């Protein structure tokens, strides 16, 4: 890595303009097993350098997989030509990037070497066994899958204004799926976990055996579960559902590029946007929750990541920034500039997004709910600039007179995020980051994590109408 950082520094000395060179080597390996058959076992290697320049208030970018000095010089020249060509068209020039505390040195996350040294074959055996356990859990399981992915990332970011950061990290995830069938009815369930670190990190909360048991049992239980009636309801959202809400419905609206385009969070800094019980953060690392799926020490612009409090006791406190947007808003960059591969430019992306825990127990919150639902096991979701969101949930359990009663089949939860957060009247002590197997999509993918406590609120459930 030292030789690469020296080479990148040398290339950038040839630039009369601000420039950034980012080396990124990614080795990703995947395994997929279904019904006892290996469907996929593969290894991909992608490496190269992306060069970004700022010339006359315009960005230019070029990339190459060829790491010779000649190829890098050519990429630098192309990036400069691109920026010069665009600068004639731009209405508003990009401001000079503000001086900030840029990272220099090594910023690696433990677990990389340990995961690398574990034989791929051993991982395949674990995946085969987990799938078999899921399939054999019940005679009603018709099909099951187990998917394992791991990514080893080596990066060097060098800028002409002082960043020179090297990092190594490994991200891994495992996903189990089960399909149960009976009398022509079918039901599907999923269980997953994703971390940044070693193989053992993946199973620090739940063992692989427990995960396969959970996936199989849920699919079987859902077979006999009825469809939920639609309407507005009191909901207790699980940490994973809270993570989805925090990431999709709030997080995206406070990414400064969306704010500048006119998202619902525009001009709302300092205003009450949620219940005073809500404090919502996005952070590169989370205290007490090491190895989270979105863990990051330095971003792809060479900025050290920090904990950003987006909402503090219900009041909107900060947006998420890269260096360009921080210059526009006159604040410090928050370390949210991230790129998926060497040929992608860094965009404003989240890392670990969560609501801070409260002081009630889940048991107390359920006991004080007369009529509502406990919503768990997210199935993905989307939100847009208005804060309107839609989340799928596999498992919804009715709460009647303070007790959990019957289970319903998957449902869709929808609402306007800030409105929903304004209805929060209970926040649990229990706290989990539970979306580490997820990817965020914004032109490029990004590995993120999200979570929080159990949160009680009101929102719309999309179900059947009679």
């Amino acid at each position, binding site marked *: 890595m030292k030789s690469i950082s020296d080479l990148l520094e040398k290339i950038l000395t040839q630039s009369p303009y601000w420039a950034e060179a980012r080396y990124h080597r990614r080795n990703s390996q995947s395994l997929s097993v*279904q019904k006892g*058959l*290996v469907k*996929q*076992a*593969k*290894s*991909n*290697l*992608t*490496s*190269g350098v992306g060069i970004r320049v700022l010339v006359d208030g*315009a960005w*230019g*970018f*070029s*990339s*190459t*997989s060829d790491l010779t000095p000649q190829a890098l010089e050519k990429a630098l020249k*192309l*990036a400069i030509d*691109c920026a010069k060509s*665009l600068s004639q*068209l*731009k209405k508003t020039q990009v401001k000079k990037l503000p001086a900030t505390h840029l990272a220099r040195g090594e910023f690696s996350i433990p677990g990389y070497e340990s995961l690398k040294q574990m034989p791929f*074959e051993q991982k*395949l055996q674990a995946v085969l066994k987990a799938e078999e356990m899921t399939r054999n859990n019940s005679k009603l399981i018709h099909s099951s899958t187990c998917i394992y992915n791991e990514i080893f990332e080596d990066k060097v970011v060098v800028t002409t204004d002082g960043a020179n950061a090297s990092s190594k990290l490994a991200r891994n995830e495992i996903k189990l799926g089960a*399909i149960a069938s009976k009398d022509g*009815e*079918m*039901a*599907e369930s999923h269980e997953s976990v994703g971390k940044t670190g070693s193989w053992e990190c993946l199973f620090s909360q739940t063992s692989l055996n427990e995960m396969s048991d959970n996936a199989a049992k849920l699919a079987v239980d859902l077979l006999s579960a009825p469809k939920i009636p*639609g*309407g507005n309801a009191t909901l207790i959202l699980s940490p994973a559902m809270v993570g989805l809400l925090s990431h999709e419905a709030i997080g995206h609206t406070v990414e400064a*590029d969306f704010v*500048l*385009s*006119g*998202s*619902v969070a525009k001009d709302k800094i300092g205003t009450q946007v949620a219940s005073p019980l809500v404090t919502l953060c996005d952070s590169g690392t989370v205290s007490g929750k090491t190895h989270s799926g979105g863990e990051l020490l330095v971003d792809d612009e060479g900025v050290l990541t920090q904990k950003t409090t987006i909402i503090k006791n219900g009041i909107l406190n900060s947006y998420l920034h890269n260096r360009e947007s921080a210059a526009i808003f006159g604040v410090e960059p928050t370390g949210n500039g991230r790129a998926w591969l060497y040929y992608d*430019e860094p965009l404003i992306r989240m890392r670990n997004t969560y609501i801070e825990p409260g002081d009630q127990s889940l048991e107390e919150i359920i006991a004080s709910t007369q009529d509502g639902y406990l919503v768990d096991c997210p199935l*993905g979701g*989307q939100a*847009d*600039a*208005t804060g*309107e969101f*839609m989340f*799928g949930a596999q498992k919804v359990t009715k709460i009647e007179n303070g007790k959990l009663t019957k289970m319903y*089949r*998957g*449902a*869709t939860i*929808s609402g306007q995020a800030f409105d929903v957060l304004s209805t929060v009247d209970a926040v649990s002590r229990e706290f989990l980051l539970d979306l580490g197997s997820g990817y965020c999509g914004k*032109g490029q993918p990004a590995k993120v994590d999200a979570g929080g406590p159990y949160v009680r609120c009101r929102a*719309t459930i*999309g*179900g*059947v*109408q009679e």
Partner: protein
Amino acid sequence: MSQPLKNEKERLEMAAEKLLSYAVKSGADLAEVCGSYGSRTKITLEKQDYHLASSDDGYSLGVRVLKGHRQGFASCNSTDPNELKEAAIKANEIAGFSPENPHYTIEKGDNTPIDSPTGLVDPALTDLSIQTQKDWTRLMVAEATKDKRFKLNEGSLEISTGLSLILNSLGTHQSEADTVASWSLMGMAAEGEMITSFDYFSEISRKAQSAPERIVQTSRKFVSEVINNLKMGKSESYKGLVIFTPRAVLDILVSSLSYHINGRVVAEKTGRWGLSDRDKQILNPKLTLIDNPWLIDRSGCSSFDREGTPTRPLPLIEMGVLKAFCLDHYAAHALELSSTGHAAGGPSTLPSVSSHTLCLAPGTTPKKSLYDEALKTQRSFLVVHRYSGQSDPVTGDFSGVAKGAEWWAGGEKQYYVQETLISGNLFEALGKDLLDVSKETKVIDSDEESPTLLINNISVTGG
């Protein structure tokens, strides 16, 4: 083909041959190489302005090996012999410890596609100057910034040239070049406190001559549709008639339907239909679904698939009767059939099954008559254009937010609704609950095509 592109093709072919040879020398019984070269120049837009200009090119090569019925795969983004050798060794190593799967196969393909699409390369696009690309981007920006109520979040205009190549150790050798101009816009409308949902469109053109006019037309139409959404209101909850316009039909219904016509799903018996259902009535007789890989104005156009099998238009469902499934060699082997040319993927992925360009055939009823029919039957109803939600392909259940949906009442369109959820079931919606199919169809994002459908028994939950 221009000389620079010929040179890149030569380099790609040489690297692919080397990789194939390394794979066999490293112990593979059979090997297949998928390679690509791509170059692009791209201008991106952000926050109502030009954002970034970029220029890239690169190679990608993947090798799949079989040792008996054990399979391994590895890829790299380099033509360097050392990296190619490393990929070949890695693929063989993976095959060495993978359990056997009797359906893994590499087969000799037919190298001479008949009547396949031509005209995927327009030299005027390959040689397009950066100045012309800037001029075209200006056209798009002019449309996107004409009405101040439209807020451009991001957009891009890209000219790309690609080469794809499939070789295998049994003599299959297919290659194809492709040039495309693609453009997209994403944005919303805002007026006072009112903000609409994000909306998005993307289009492609393989002809330089018609591209500028299409850029203007599609951008203008998109911006106008987003601004229309500013007239917002609430819907009521009900169960009954809903009109699905083409994008909604494709997003909600056809996307799930494609799971059940996927040959691998059939082989694994995780779908609704099996081989014994062929020639049986499975959906409403008003429905005909064709996969057509030969439409050159669509993004899915290709003369061969990920395994080198020539493609061809394939009727999948005719008047509600199941006619065929989409098959790659794996699914074909498992079902004792022949590949239909539906192996999907690229150099960094193993082959999977996917359709190319699904086209739901038009009906005979004018679209206006569908609305008249709905107005006659129900005092108010929803017209769904876009969807953000879940579709469970296994059960066919779908539930999600109807985005930019119209609320019709009192004989006319009232406003666009927010926070409205719809739910239903694919098989019922395209079975007994399908009432009518419009004779007009629409191509969405230069890809799939659908008419408008009138469907009963859909649950609508107003926010």
